[in-house]
């Protein structure tokens, strides 16, 4: 067995171990279904909407916040315009007639500065963040508040993120990926190891910022770094799988790769900044499992993709060389349809098991978030994801090596 094959086996072993671990967590502590009970206390909530050139989606985002089932006098919507050059201000203006909607304009400084600006200019007990390209379900805030009420030690909550109206192939692919993410995040909640508080609709108790400080630039992944810092200070992060938020996702490969490169590179650079948390028992499952596995998954994805690409190129190169030097005219190889000729190696069965478990995880994610995915979505996910993901992994690795900052928006 050569070193390449051995590496692939190691990658599959760790990947499978992780999937099995999550499935055990699921069956040990099944997520409860949504109930109609209401909170006994409604804390004041400031929903911060940092925006930069969001003229296309800002109105729908504010509409979704105004439609939230929550006492009007307990909720304020704060739009922080981070120096937009488009019509964002004009579009928000009519909403300012509502006394619960506020608008601030500031010089462009990046998303984290907009969030910190919002925190400084509000006084609510709960601070919520909602990207200006996302829309919350009507009972989303109630579900989050119920979660806060269920455990006073919970300091921040993430929602169940879904893709907003997936139509194109890439959007359908991401719809499956996000559903897998719902399962994944819930299981990480079970083991207290959530590693990111995503921009679309994460909620914090105000004291979080008093304890850990404001958002940092954090390599353009402030939502990830704040989660790292909360674990550092022993603050609990939970997931409300019954609070749904719909977010718009990139519909072109270029935009998707750019977005994911930012996330992945942010993970690498934040990991470097907080390297002392790795395999540190003091930080529980976050340090012992979530961080090491995240980094391993990154490396494994790159390694496996490189290994497969190398073999594909070697094979194709070999065939081309053979045809060119043997003078055999190009022709299709004769297919063998008997099982005898099928690849029944251990690696094949392990690959089937890995894909099968991912499929089960997506199905469970669908079940706990009441999402329905089409067959086309599954096809696009299993056909496309493996080809596109290595691109952003490679770009992120290259960017991290060169320590080049990725951009969160076109600033």
């Amino acid at each position, binding site marked *: 067995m050569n070193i390449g094959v051995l590496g692939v086996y190691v990658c599959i*072993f760790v990947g*499978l*171990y992780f999937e*099995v*671990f999550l499935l*055990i*967590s699921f069956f*040990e502590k099944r997520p409860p279904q949504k109930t109609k009970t209401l909170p006994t206390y409604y804390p004041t909530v400031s929903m911060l909407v940092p925006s930069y050139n969001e003229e296309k989606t800002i109105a729908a985002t504010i509409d979704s916040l105004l439609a939230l089932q929550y006492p009007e006098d307990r909720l304020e919507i704060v739009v922080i315009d981070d120096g937009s050059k488009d019509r964002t201000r004009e579009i928000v203006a009519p909403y300012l007639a509502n006394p619960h909607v506020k608008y601030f304009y500031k010089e462009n400084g990046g998303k984290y500065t907009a969030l910190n600006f919002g925190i400084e200019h509000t006084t609510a007990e709960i601070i919520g963040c909602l990207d200006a390209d996302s829309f919350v379900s009507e009972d989303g805030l109630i579900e989050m508040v119920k979660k806060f009420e269920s455990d006073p030690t919970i300091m921040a909550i993430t929602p169940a993120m879904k893709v907003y109206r997936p139509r194109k192939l890439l959007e359908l692919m991401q719809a499956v990926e996000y559903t897998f993410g719902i399962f994944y995040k819930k299981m990480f909640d079970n*083991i207290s190891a959530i590693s990111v508080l995503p921009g679309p609709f994460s909620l914090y108790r105000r004291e979080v910022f008093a304890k850990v400080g404001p958002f940092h630039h954090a390599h353009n992944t402030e939502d990830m770094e704040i989660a790292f810092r909360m674990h550092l200070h022993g603050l609990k992060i939970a997931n409300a799988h019954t609070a749904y938020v719909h977010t718009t996702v990139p519909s072109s490969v270029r935009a998707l790769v750019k977005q994911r490169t930012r996330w992945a590179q942010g993970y690498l650079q934040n990991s470097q900044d907080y390297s002392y948390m790795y395999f540190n028992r003091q930080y529980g*499952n976050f340090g012992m499992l979530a961080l090491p596995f995240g980094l391993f998954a990154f490396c494994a994805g790159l390694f496996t993709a490189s290994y497969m690409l190398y073999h594909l190129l070697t094979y194709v190169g070999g065939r081309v060389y*053979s045809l060119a*030097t*043997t*003078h*055999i005219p190009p*022709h299709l190889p*004769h297919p*063998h349809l008997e099982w*005898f*000729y099928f690849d*029944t*190696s*251990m690696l094949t*069965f*392990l690959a089937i*098991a890995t894909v099968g478990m991912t499929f089960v995880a997506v199905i469970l994610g669908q079940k706990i978030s009441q999402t329905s995915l089409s067959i086309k979505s599954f096809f696009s996910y299993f056909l496309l994801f493996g080809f596109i993901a290595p691109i952003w992994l490679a770009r992120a690795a290259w960017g991290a090596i060169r320590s080049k900052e990725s951009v969160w928006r076109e600033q």
Partner: protein
Amino acid sequence: MWKRYLLALILTLGIFGSAFYMEYRLDEQRVAMIRASENDISIDILSSQTQFELLGNLECGTTTQSTALSSELDTLGSRLSVAENNLGSKNDEVVSLKKQYSLLEIKDFILAQQIAAKCHQKPVFVLYFYSNAGDCPDCSREGDVLTYLRQQYPALRVYAFDYHLDLSALRTLSSIHELKEQLPALIINNRQPVYGFKTLDDVEALIPELKATATSTKKTATSSVTR
């Protein structure tokens, strides 16, 4: 908490064990199929040989049986190739199967020659000596050439032999043709061995008889002579 980590480890090891077991059982089944196929072909060859000896002057219509036999040998060859890829060329079972396969090829070659002589046919026989021990970088491409040729000329009979196979009958065949260890090597219709890589055009030029045997039937063969 540690129990969850341990349980996950046990289950993951279980999945790996199951995958290993499935691979092992299916390879075992493949070997059994090849063994059964070799036994069948062996009986067929023995039957044809006996029939030939009994009749003395064989009715030439029955030679189609030998053609079918050759096709079965081809299929067996490609299956053996799969087994060798999966289990490795040094696997005892594979070596044993290859020896039996080579013996069957030699027997078929002799029988086919005898039938051709009796029936005044002019088939084209190519004995192809290769090695997959890493000492013949051109063998793979030469195999591609012969596989393609056989698809183009169904009457062409290619017998592929692993030069390094420890089989006395094979050594005898090599010594009869005074074969040197320069691979790949082709022996065409019992003429002097030709050494080194030959392109499709080269091989066609080396076998002028092919034009005569070409029946324009572009049947496709199902097997490969490469290993």
